[in-house]
Protein backbone atom coordinates (compact mmCIF):
# COMPACT_ATOMS: atom_id res chain seq x y z
CA UNK A 1 0.00 0.00 0.00
CA UNK A 2 1.54 3.30 -1.09
CA UNK A 3 0.99 6.73 0.45
CA UNK A 4 -1.71 7.60 -2.08
CA UNK A 5 -3.73 4.55 -1.07
CA UNK A 6 -3.24 5.42 2.60
CA UNK A 7 -4.49 8.97 1.98
CA UNK A 8 -7.54 7.76 0.07
CA UNK A 9 -8.30 5.18 2.78
CA UNK A 10 -8.05 7.98 5.34
CA UNK A 11 -10.68 10.03 3.47
CA UNK A 12 -12.90 6.96 3.12
CA UNK A 13 -12.55 6.22 6.83
CA UNK A 14 -13.69 9.76 7.69
CA UNK A 15 -16.63 9.41 5.29
CA UNK A 16 -17.52 6.00 6.77
CA UNK A 17 -17.35 7.45 10.30
CA UNK A 18 -19.75 10.22 9.27
CA UNK A 19 -22.19 7.77 7.68
CA UNK A 20 -22.00 5.50 10.75
CA UNK A 21 -22.69 8.39 13.11
CA UNK A 22 -25.65 9.47 11.00
CA UNK A 23 -27.03 5.92 10.92
CA UNK A 24 -26.66 5.57 14.70
CA UNK A 25 -28.29 8.97 15.25
CA UNK A 26 -31.30 7.89 13.17
CA UNK A 27 -31.67 4.67 15.19
CA UNK A 28 -31.03 6.30 18.58
CA UNK A 29 -31.90 10.01 18.35
CA UNK A 30 -32.15 10.20 22.15
CA UNK A 31 -28.45 9.33 22.51
CA UNK A 32 -26.71 10.85 19.50
CA UNK A 33 -27.81 13.92 17.50
CA UNK A 34 -27.91 13.72 13.72
CA UNK A 35 -25.75 16.06 11.66
CA UNK A 36 -28.89 18.04 10.83
CA UNK A 37 -29.69 18.58 14.51
CA UNK A 38 -26.12 19.62 15.25
CA UNK A 39 -26.22 22.09 12.34
CA UNK A 40 -29.60 23.42 13.50
CA UNK A 41 -28.17 23.89 16.99
CA UNK A 42 -25.12 25.74 15.65
CA UNK A 43 -27.34 27.87 13.41
CA UNK A 44 -29.47 29.20 16.27
CA UNK A 45 -27.22 32.24 16.47
CA UNK A 46 -26.57 34.59 13.56
CA UNK A 47 -22.83 33.95 13.72
CA UNK A 48 -23.37 30.21 13.59
CA UNK A 49 -25.84 30.49 10.72
CA UNK A 50 -23.57 32.70 8.66
CA UNK A 51 -20.59 30.46 9.44
CA UNK A 52 -22.36 27.35 8.18
CA UNK A 53 -23.66 29.09 5.02
CA UNK A 54 -20.17 30.46 4.32
CA UNK A 55 -18.69 26.97 4.73
CA UNK A 56 -21.19 25.75 2.16
CA UNK A 57 -20.36 28.64 -0.21
CA UNK A 58 -16.65 27.95 0.21
CA UNK A 59 -17.12 24.40 -1.11
CA UNK A 60 -18.57 25.78 -4.35
CA UNK A 61 -15.86 28.41 -4.66
CA UNK A 62 -13.16 25.85 -3.95
CA UNK A 63 -14.26 23.50 -6.71
CA UNK A 64 -15.41 25.91 -9.40
CA UNK A 65 -14.07 29.42 -8.90
CA UNK A 66 -10.63 31.00 -9.00
Amino acid at each position, binding site marked *: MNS*RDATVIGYLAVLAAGITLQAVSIRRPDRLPSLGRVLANVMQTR*TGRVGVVVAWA*WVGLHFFAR
Partner: protein
Amino acid sequence: MINMTSSGSGRRLEAWPDLRRDGRRAAGTRPHQSAQLRQRVAKSLPVNTSGEGKFSVVTDVGEAADNPSVAQPSAAPPSLGQAAAAGLRQPIVAILLLIALFTTVSGKPLDGFLMLAVATMLISDAARSRRQAARGGSGASPSATTSATSPATSHQRGPRRLLAGAARLAAGALYCVIVGSFRRYSWPATASVVVFGCLMIAIGWQGPLPRRRPLTGEPLRRAWLWAVVLVSGGLLELASLLQQPHLTTDSYAHPTISALTDPVLASFPGRSAVLGGWLLAGWYVVSR
Protein backbone atom coordinates in the same frame (compact mmCIF):
# COMPACT_ATOMS: atom_id res chain seq x y z
CA MET B 1 -37.34 33.48 22.25
CA ILE B 2 -40.95 34.25 22.56
CA ASN B 3 -43.67 32.67 20.55
CA MET B 4 -47.21 33.79 20.98
CA THR B 5 -49.94 32.52 18.78
CA SER B 6 -53.62 32.97 18.78
CA SER B 7 -55.79 31.07 16.42
CA GLY B 8 -59.50 30.63 16.92
CA SER B 9 -60.12 29.01 20.27
CA GLY B 10 -56.53 27.83 20.70
CA ARG B 11 -54.06 30.07 22.51
CA ARG B 12 -50.48 29.36 23.40
CA LEU B 13 -47.81 31.37 25.16
CA GLU B 14 -44.21 30.25 25.30
CA ALA B 15 -41.51 32.39 26.75
CA TRP B 16 -38.10 32.35 28.35
CA PRO B 17 -37.86 31.70 32.09
CA ASP B 18 -38.62 35.27 33.20
CA LEU B 19 -41.83 35.33 31.19
CA ARG B 20 -42.68 31.79 32.25
CA ARG B 21 -42.31 33.03 35.79
CA ASP B 22 -44.68 35.85 34.94
CA GLY B 23 -47.05 33.31 33.42
CA ARG B 24 -46.98 31.13 36.52
CA ARG B 25 -47.57 34.18 38.64
CA ALA B 26 -50.46 35.07 36.37
CA ALA B 27 -51.89 31.57 36.71
CA GLY B 28 -52.62 32.35 40.31
CA THR B 29 -54.37 35.58 39.44
CA ARG B 30 -57.80 36.39 38.22
CA PRO B 31 -58.70 36.03 34.54
CA HIS B 32 -58.71 39.79 33.82
CA GLN B 33 -55.22 40.06 35.38
CA SER B 34 -53.96 37.21 33.20
CA ALA B 35 -55.38 38.97 30.13
CA GLN B 36 -53.60 42.16 31.20
CA LEU B 37 -50.32 40.26 31.36
CA ARG B 38 -50.82 38.90 27.84
CA GLN B 39 -51.61 42.38 26.61
CA ARG B 40 -48.47 43.71 28.30
CA VAL B 41 -46.29 41.07 26.61
CA ALA B 42 -47.92 41.64 23.23
CA LYS B 43 -47.53 45.44 23.48
CA SER B 44 -43.86 45.20 24.40
CA LEU B 45 -43.03 43.21 21.27
CA PRO B 46 -43.36 43.87 17.56
CA VAL B 47 -46.29 41.86 16.35
CA ASN B 48 -47.18 40.87 12.84
CA THR B 49 -50.90 40.94 12.52
CA SER B 50 -51.98 39.87 9.11
CA GLY B 51 -54.71 37.33 8.96
CA GLU B 52 -57.79 36.72 10.94
CA GLY B 53 -57.08 36.29 14.60
CA LYS B 54 -53.58 34.98 13.94
CA PHE B 55 -50.38 36.62 14.91
CA SER B 56 -46.85 35.45 15.47
CA VAL B 57 -43.97 36.99 17.36
CA VAL B 58 -40.42 35.75 17.16
CA THR B 59 -37.59 37.68 18.74
CA ASP B 60 -33.96 36.83 18.40
CA VAL B 61 -32.15 36.06 21.59
CA GLY B 62 -29.49 34.02 19.87
CA GLU B 63 -27.07 36.89 20.31
CA ALA B 64 -27.98 37.15 23.95
CA ALA B 65 -27.22 33.46 24.35
CA ASP B 66 -23.84 34.02 22.70
CA ASN B 67 -23.04 37.12 24.58
CA PRO B 68 -24.13 37.63 28.15
CA SER B 69 -23.60 41.36 27.89
CA VAL B 70 -26.45 41.46 25.39
CA ALA B 71 -28.89 40.18 27.95
CA GLN B 72 -27.46 42.23 30.81
CA PRO B 73 -26.55 45.74 29.74
CA SER B 74 -23.53 47.08 31.55
CA ALA B 75 -23.07 50.66 32.68
CA ALA B 76 -20.10 51.62 30.50
CA PRO B 77 -20.13 50.63 26.83
CA PRO B 78 -16.95 48.82 25.74
CA SER B 79 -14.48 50.63 23.51
CA LEU B 80 -14.49 49.82 19.80
CA GLY B 81 -11.29 47.79 20.23
CA GLN B 82 -12.73 45.75 23.10
CA ALA B 83 -15.95 45.10 21.18
CA ALA B 84 -13.99 44.06 18.06
CA ALA B 85 -11.77 41.76 20.16
CA ALA B 86 -14.91 40.08 21.49
CA GLY B 87 -16.06 39.48 17.90
CA LEU B 88 -12.62 38.15 17.00
CA ARG B 89 -12.82 35.58 19.81
CA GLN B 90 -15.81 33.84 18.23
CA PRO B 91 -14.71 30.35 17.07
CA ILE B 92 -16.40 30.68 13.68
CA VAL B 93 -14.54 33.91 12.97
CA ALA B 94 -11.25 32.22 13.83
CA ILE B 95 -12.10 29.30 11.53
CA LEU B 96 -13.00 31.67 8.68
CA LEU B 97 -9.72 33.56 9.12
CA LEU B 98 -7.78 30.26 9.02
CA ILE B 99 -9.63 29.23 5.85
CA ALA B 100 -8.88 32.65 4.35
CA LEU B 101 -5.16 32.21 5.12
CA PHE B 102 -4.82 28.69 3.76
CA THR B 103 -6.89 29.23 0.63
CA THR B 104 -4.92 32.37 -0.20
CA VAL B 105 -1.54 30.69 0.20
CA SER B 106 -2.75 27.70 -1.85
CA GLY B 107 -3.40 29.95 -4.82
CA LYS B 108 -7.09 30.80 -4.41
CA PRO B 109 -7.08 34.44 -3.40
CA LEU B 110 -10.75 34.94 -4.30
CA ASP B 111 -11.85 32.29 -1.77
CA GLY B 112 -9.55 33.86 0.78
CA PHE B 113 -10.86 37.35 0.12
CA LEU B 114 -14.49 36.28 0.50
CA MET B 115 -13.80 34.41 3.74
CA LEU B 116 -11.90 37.40 5.07
CA ALA B 117 -14.74 39.74 4.08
CA VAL B 118 -17.35 37.62 5.86
CA ALA B 119 -15.14 37.26 8.96
CA THR B 120 -14.68 41.04 9.04
CA MET B 121 -18.43 41.62 8.71
CA LEU B 122 -19.10 39.15 11.53
CA ILE B 123 -16.58 40.93 13.77
CA SER B 124 -18.14 44.28 12.92
CA ASP B 125 -21.65 42.93 13.53
CA ALA B 126 -20.66 41.40 16.88
CA ALA B 127 -18.90 44.62 17.94
CA ARG B 128 -21.94 46.71 17.00
CA SER B 129 -24.27 44.36 18.87
CA ARG B 130 -22.05 44.44 21.96
CA ARG B 131 -21.90 48.23 22.01
CA GLN B 132 -25.64 48.54 21.41
CA ALA B 133 -26.31 46.06 24.20
CA ALA B 134 -24.06 48.01 26.56
CA ARG B 135 -26.03 51.16 25.75
CA GLY B 136 -29.23 49.36 26.66
CA GLY B 137 -30.41 48.33 23.19
CA SER B 138 -31.47 44.87 22.16
CA GLY B 139 -28.01 44.03 20.87
CA ALA B 140 -29.24 42.27 17.79
CA SER B 141 -29.02 43.77 14.34
CA PRO B 142 -32.26 44.99 12.85
CA SER B 143 -32.10 42.32 10.18
CA ALA B 144 -32.41 39.56 12.74
CA THR B 145 -34.02 41.25 15.69
CA THR B 146 -37.45 40.12 14.79
CA SER B 147 -38.73 37.74 12.25
CA ALA B 148 -42.42 37.54 12.00
CA THR B 149 -43.95 34.56 10.35
CA SER B 150 -46.53 35.59 7.85
CA PRO B 151 -49.63 33.45 8.00
CA ALA B 152 -49.85 33.75 4.23
CA THR B 153 -46.50 31.97 3.80
CA SER B 154 -46.84 29.57 6.71
CA HIS B 155 -50.14 28.39 5.33
CA GLN B 156 -49.01 28.20 1.75
CA ARG B 157 -50.44 24.89 0.70
CA GLY B 158 -51.56 22.89 -2.26
CA PRO B 159 -51.02 23.93 -5.86
CA ARG B 160 -49.20 27.19 -5.06
CA ARG B 161 -46.64 25.37 -2.95
CA LEU B 162 -46.19 22.66 -5.57
CA LEU B 163 -45.78 25.29 -8.27
CA ALA B 164 -43.19 27.20 -6.21
CA GLY B 165 -41.29 23.96 -5.55
CA ALA B 166 -41.34 23.01 -9.22
CA ALA B 167 -40.14 26.49 -10.22
CA ARG B 168 -37.23 26.30 -7.77
CA LEU B 169 -36.33 22.82 -9.00
CA ALA B 170 -36.41 23.97 -12.63
CA ALA B 171 -34.31 27.05 -11.86
CA GLY B 172 -31.80 24.90 -9.98
CA ALA B 173 -31.58 22.37 -12.81
CA LEU B 174 -31.12 25.18 -15.34
CA TYR B 175 -28.35 26.67 -13.19
CA CYS B 176 -26.59 23.29 -13.00
CA VAL B 177 -26.79 22.75 -16.75
CA ILE B 178 -25.64 26.27 -17.67
CA VAL B 179 -22.86 26.62 -15.08
CA GLY B 180 -21.83 22.99 -15.55
CA SER B 181 -21.21 23.73 -19.23
CA PHE B 182 -18.55 26.32 -18.29
CA ARG B 183 -14.95 25.22 -17.89
CA ARG B 184 -13.79 25.07 -14.24
CA TYR B 185 -12.10 28.21 -13.00
CA SER B 186 -13.20 30.15 -16.11
CA TRP B 187 -14.60 33.61 -15.43
CA PRO B 188 -18.26 32.65 -16.21
CA ALA B 189 -18.06 29.70 -13.78
CA THR B 190 -16.34 31.86 -11.17
CA ALA B 191 -18.86 34.69 -11.53
CA SER B 192 -21.86 32.32 -11.39
CA VAL B 193 -20.67 30.54 -8.26
CA VAL B 194 -19.50 33.71 -6.50
CA VAL B 195 -22.76 35.57 -7.17
CA PHE B 196 -24.91 32.64 -6.06
CA GLY B 197 -22.75 32.00 -2.99
CA CYS B 198 -22.91 35.67 -1.95
CA LEU B 199 -26.68 35.70 -2.48
CA MET B 200 -27.09 32.70 -0.19
CA ILE B 201 -24.81 34.26 2.44
CA ALA B 202 -26.97 37.40 2.32
CA ILE B 203 -30.10 35.26 2.75
CA GLY B 204 -28.47 33.41 5.63
CA TRP B 205 -27.51 36.72 7.23
CA GLN B 206 -30.95 38.25 6.92
CA GLY B 207 -33.01 35.11 7.27
CA PRO B 208 -35.10 34.30 10.32
CA LEU B 209 -33.44 32.49 13.16
CA PRO B 210 -34.64 28.93 13.32
CA ARG B 211 -36.83 28.30 16.33
CA ARG B 212 -35.84 24.85 17.42
CA ARG B 213 -35.40 23.22 20.76
CA PRO B 214 -31.67 23.35 21.55
CA LEU B 215 -29.74 20.15 22.11
CA THR B 216 -29.64 19.11 25.74
CA GLY B 217 -28.60 16.15 27.82
CA GLU B 218 -26.96 13.13 26.24
CA PRO B 219 -27.30 14.25 22.58
CA LEU B 220 -25.52 17.51 23.46
CA ARG B 221 -22.74 15.69 25.31
CA ARG B 222 -22.17 13.42 22.31
CA ALA B 223 -22.20 16.14 19.66
CA TRP B 224 -18.40 16.25 19.96
CA LEU B 225 -18.28 13.03 17.93
CA TRP B 226 -19.34 15.05 14.89
CA ALA B 227 -16.63 17.59 15.62
CA VAL B 228 -14.07 14.75 15.69
CA VAL B 229 -15.19 13.54 12.25
CA LEU B 230 -15.16 17.03 10.70
CA VAL B 231 -11.83 18.02 12.26
CA SER B 232 -10.26 14.68 11.22
CA GLY B 233 -11.32 15.29 7.62
CA GLY B 234 -9.95 18.83 7.74
CA LEU B 235 -6.63 17.72 9.24
CA LEU B 236 -6.23 14.97 6.64
CA GLU B 237 -6.86 17.50 3.86
CA LEU B 238 -4.42 19.94 5.44
CA ALA B 239 -1.75 17.24 5.82
CA SER B 240 -2.11 16.36 2.13
CA LEU B 241 -1.95 20.02 1.16
CA LEU B 242 1.24 20.57 3.14
CA GLN B 243 2.88 17.47 1.62
CA GLN B 244 2.40 18.69 -1.95
CA PRO B 245 5.59 19.72 -3.78
CA HIS B 246 4.15 23.23 -3.82
CA LEU B 247 0.96 24.60 -2.30
CA THR B 248 -0.42 25.28 -5.78
CA THR B 249 0.81 21.98 -7.31
CA ASP B 250 -1.12 18.75 -6.73
CA SER B 251 0.66 15.68 -5.43
CA TYR B 252 -0.09 12.16 -6.73
CA ALA B 253 1.19 10.58 -3.51
CA HIS B 254 -0.75 12.90 -1.19
CA PRO B 255 -3.90 13.95 -3.02
CA THR B 256 -6.24 16.55 -1.58
CA ILE B 257 -10.00 16.08 -1.96
CA SER B 258 -10.07 18.56 -4.84
CA ALA B 259 -7.27 16.64 -6.60
CA LEU B 260 -9.25 13.40 -6.19
CA THR B 261 -12.38 14.99 -7.63
CA ASP B 262 -10.60 16.48 -10.66
CA PRO B 263 -11.52 13.54 -12.99
CA VAL B 264 -15.21 13.88 -12.08
CA LEU B 265 -15.22 17.65 -12.51
CA ALA B 266 -13.44 17.45 -15.84
CA SER B 267 -16.66 16.44 -17.60
CA PHE B 268 -19.85 18.43 -18.17
CA PRO B 269 -22.16 15.81 -16.54
CA GLY B 270 -19.81 15.50 -13.58
CA ARG B 271 -19.72 19.27 -13.02
CA SER B 272 -23.51 19.52 -13.34
CA ALA B 273 -24.05 16.66 -10.89
CA VAL B 274 -21.65 18.16 -8.31
CA LEU B 275 -23.31 21.56 -8.74
CA GLY B 276 -26.68 19.90 -8.15
CA GLY B 277 -25.40 18.39 -4.90
CA TRP B 278 -23.98 21.76 -3.88
CA LEU B 279 -27.31 23.50 -4.52
CA LEU B 280 -29.24 20.87 -2.59
CA ALA B 281 -26.86 21.18 0.34
CA GLY B 282 -27.26 24.98 0.22
CA TRP B 283 -31.03 24.71 0.19
CA TYR B 284 -30.88 22.35 3.16
CA VAL B 285 -28.59 24.69 5.11
CA VAL B 286 -30.56 27.88 4.42
CA SER B 287 -33.85 26.21 5.27
CA ARG B 288 -32.58 25.04 8.72
